[in-house]
């Protein structure tokens, strides 16, 4: 009993909660709003997977989300990143997002220590299902047919504890997943102030899901000197021009979210609204910001007068004029276009066009985690630069071929982009035939393919093949050099679909034939054919003999 009670006594950690809202007017008149809710469990460490067989210590949290914390402890997750996004992030017009993970659909990647007690894949499956239940998403479908381990692109964002065993990466994405209120509801329930007060009160589903791009994310990482950090993020790109009757891009919290901040979240240590100041001087911000820092106007929600309704107006503008695409300077070092060419249902060609906007040579890592629905012919990989063949510009880092019905492709390559040039990369792909039962209910729609991920590596001499699992120091070093990921839009592949009524026709026809043959033979064996004279006195010789089938029972009557 005493043993039991000592085990269940959990440590109580110091916790802090911070919330930030970043508002950034974009070049095409839209407004990016990025919510970030960070809870740090100070001094805590992720659960040692070596203790998975022992009953875990009890968890006592005040601000830290318990439902998420229990899941993390149950499966001994060191680092977790889950995003649910809808829409296509337009890097050329919007630049980098505040939160890096903007791949369309669901994406989940985790680092877990492999102690050998419970297999990584079992824990990965359990985690997927637990998160699926927690966030009302179809994450349970992120099975081994979509799971890869692309450790070149997905580096740990925090530090990894110094355990005697390796850390393994598991990554999977589901591009067809949609995001709606049922995902936001559990998201809000994880926040200490829910959606009632503070910045989170602006999260109005009717407005957020009306935006041109929206996505939510859960990021858990371990920071060596601080503890376990959970960051819940929500990003939305709304279009004030669409809401405005006059076609102006003026916005306010009330016009974008249909709400204003009325109360402060009392447990938040900091609650800050940051507004990126646009280049035009004509923009007027009200109320007066608390301060300026790094090109952002700062508002402290706790000090500000309530209700806090920040607004920005371009007074000299009577109507917003959309800028020409050519007039916007590139906001990211590279631009990527990925398309699937070919009209037949058996093969095609994957084409990737990468533009380097910078005046120096750059290395870019290129990742494809393709389900076996599209299979690469790697020998047909061709690279041209400004029209001429330059196959030397690509070096394949790793390639795991797909196993149909079982395993996806993992293709990691390192591209060298000459300055201010365009690289064309293409390769033949095969579209396999699916089993009849593997098609989704809306098979004719096609299959969504996950986004490719590009990471510009600024320092060309830095080799990024360091082992991420060797310890905290290496990943810290890498973080300084790591550039931000760029997700391409998803692709839609049209696979050959059968005539779904055909199996039914075959089944029905064959069943009919079998029944006919069996029935007639069976009847011949078990029944006797006799002549029953219905009317002896009949004058018509044609009707007096009626052939009839009669079983033994019938005859006895």
């Amino acid at each position, binding site marked *: 009993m005493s043993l039991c009670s000592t085990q269940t006594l959990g440590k109580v950690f110091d916790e802090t909660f911070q919330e930030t809202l970043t508002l950034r007017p974009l070049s095409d008149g839209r407004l990016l709003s990025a919510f970030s809710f960070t809870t740090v469990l100070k001094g805590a460490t992720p659960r040692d997977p070596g203790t998975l067989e022992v009953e875990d210590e009890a968890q006592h949290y005040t601000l830290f989300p318990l439902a998420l914390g229990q899941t993390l402890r149950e499966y001994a997750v060191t680092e977790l990143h889950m995003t649910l996004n809808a829409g296509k992030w337009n890097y050329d017009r919007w630049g980098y997002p505040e939160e890096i993970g903007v791949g369309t659909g669901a994406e989940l990647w985790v680092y877990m220590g492999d102690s050998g007690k419970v297999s990584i894949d079992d824990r990965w499956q359990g985690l997927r299902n637990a998160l699926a239940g927690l966030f009302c998403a179809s994450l349970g479908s992120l099975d081994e047919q979509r799971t890869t381990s692309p450790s070149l692109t997905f580096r740990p964002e925090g530090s990894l504890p110094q355990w005697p065993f390796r850390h393994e990466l598991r990554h999977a994405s589901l591009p067809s997943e*949609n995001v709606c209120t*049922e995902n936001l509801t559990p998201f809000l329930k994880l926040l200490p102030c829910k959606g009632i007060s503070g910045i989170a009160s602006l999260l109005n589903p009717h407005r957020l899901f009306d935006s041109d791009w929206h996505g939510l994310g859960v990021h858990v990482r371990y920071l060596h000197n601080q503890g376990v950090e959970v960051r819940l993020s929500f990003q939305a790109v709304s279009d004030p021009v669409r809401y405005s009757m006059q076609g102006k891009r003026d916005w306010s919290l009330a016009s974008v979210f249909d709400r204003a901040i009325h109360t402060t979240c009392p447990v938040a240590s900091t609650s800050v609204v940051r507004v990126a100041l646009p280049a035009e001087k004509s923009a007027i911000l009200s109320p007066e910001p608390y301060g300026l820092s790094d090109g952002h106007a700062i508002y402290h929600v706790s000090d500000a007068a309530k209700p806090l309704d920040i607004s920005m107006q371009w007074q000299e503008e009577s109507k917003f004029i959309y800028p020409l695409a050519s007039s916007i300077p590139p906001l990211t070092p590279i631009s990527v276009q990925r398309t699937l060419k070919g009209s037949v249902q058996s093969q095609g060609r994957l084409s990737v066009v990468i533009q380097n906007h910078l005046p120096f040579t750059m290395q870019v890592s290129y990742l494809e985690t393709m389900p076996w629905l599209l299979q690469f012919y790697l020998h047909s990989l061709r690279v041209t630069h400004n029209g001429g063949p330059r196959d030397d510009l690509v070096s394949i880092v790793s390639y795991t071929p797909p196993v149909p019905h079982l395993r996806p492709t993992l293709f990691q390559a390192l591209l060298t982009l000459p300055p201010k040039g365009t690289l064309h990369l293409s390769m033949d792909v095969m579209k396999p035939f699916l089993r009849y039962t593997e098609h989704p209910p809306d098979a004719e729609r096609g299959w969504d393919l996950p986004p490719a991920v590009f990471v510009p590596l600024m320092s060309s001499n830095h080799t990024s093949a360091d082992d991420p699992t060797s310890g905290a120091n290496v990943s810290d070093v890498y973080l300084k050099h790591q550039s931000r990921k760029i997700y391409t839009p998803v692709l839609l592949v049209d696979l050959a679909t059968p005539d779904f009524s055909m199996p039914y026709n075959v089944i029905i026809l064959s069943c009919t034939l079998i029944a006919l043959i069996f029935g007639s033979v069976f009847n011949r064996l078990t029944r006797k054919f006799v002549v029953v004279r219905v009317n002896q006195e009949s004058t018509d010789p044609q009707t007096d003999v009626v052939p009839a089938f009669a079983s033994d029972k019938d005859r006895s009557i």
Partner: protein
Amino acid sequence: MRLPISLLSLSLLCLSSIISAQQSAEEQITSFFNANTKSDTTSGSGHTNNWAVLVCASRYWFNYRHMANALGMYRTVKRLGIPDSNIILMLSDDAACNTRNKFPGCVFASAHGPGRATGKGGGGQDSLDLYGDNIEVDYRGYEVTVENFLRVLTGRVPPSVPRSKRLLSNDRSNVFIYMTGHGGNEFLKFQDDEEISAFDIADALEQMWQKKRYSEVLFMIDTCQANTMFSKFYSPNILATGSSEMDEKSYSFENDNDLGVAVIDSYTHYVLKFMEGINKTSQMTMQDLFNTYSFDKFHSTAGVRSDLFNRPLDKTYITDFLGGVSQAEVLIPLPPSDPPLEPESQHEYSAAPAPHDFNTTSEPKEEEVSLFPELATHLLDDAEKSTLRAWTSTAVLLGLVGWVAARRSASAKASP
């Protein structure tokens, strides 16, 4: 002589008064705990928890009305007190955040009026937004399959499936099952891809009954030829109702010109309208609901099947199924010779197991369940002879086929 008799009578009197005092105390306690439950007003449902399984089986935007049907029921059961943890909501498509939805995050229960057209996104005063801003969908999109539905009902799920996706009911649960979609004679289509038949649901419910997963079931279905779906039920304590008879269609209620689709089906619209007038303490009965059924409103013949249901419908409250009613049960530890005290309501239906026997009620014993209960008892009685004959003739048939095959192969060998 008199003294002893008077003493005896006095002591008897004392004893009886003590007993009666004790009894009255017990009655007081019982009546106190049952004051808020329906047992004193002879509703007689012995359930202690409520569950709801709401299924929209149709995919695609043009089936908006089916999403609205299921969400209408979701709104009702949640409003009447069933928590999200006890609701399994299966929505096979995303109508609320569909790109074609002019009002993102909203699914409306009726066509719009002037209020909604101006209010952007937030809905108007006159049309009910069923999606709201606090909803949890447990199975969505491709996850809504016949297999998952049957697994939810029967509880046969893999161990890693989270609690929110399980029907964790017991033999004191009242389960409300609502289904909607496109159906036909004895089937309901799931996602334009597969069908569930009336036999499947009937067998699943029987399995639930044998595994002690429900006390009573209200089965409601809104689809074409809906009444055929519950025609095959054979398990006890099931009340079933559907929107239309065999060879009848169930019609949608109205079109919304902003959305461009029909918003809700007639049957569910009127049921929802009826439910909107009910609150948690309502004394309305199932009979009251069934009395509102009319062909003129639905354009189809709504049906009720109560032959499996043991309680009178006019004593069965709506909130027995659609409300989250929790009952406290007073169990006073008494000497083993005395029968334990139990609320009156427990006596009313005989098919349910004894409620105070927690050994049998709290832990369903699955190993006792026979796989073929019907087969085991009747197989050898009267049909034995004919079965024997059929098998013998099958054997003869197979022998004949074999003989023919052997001859053919022999002749084939001989011919060249």
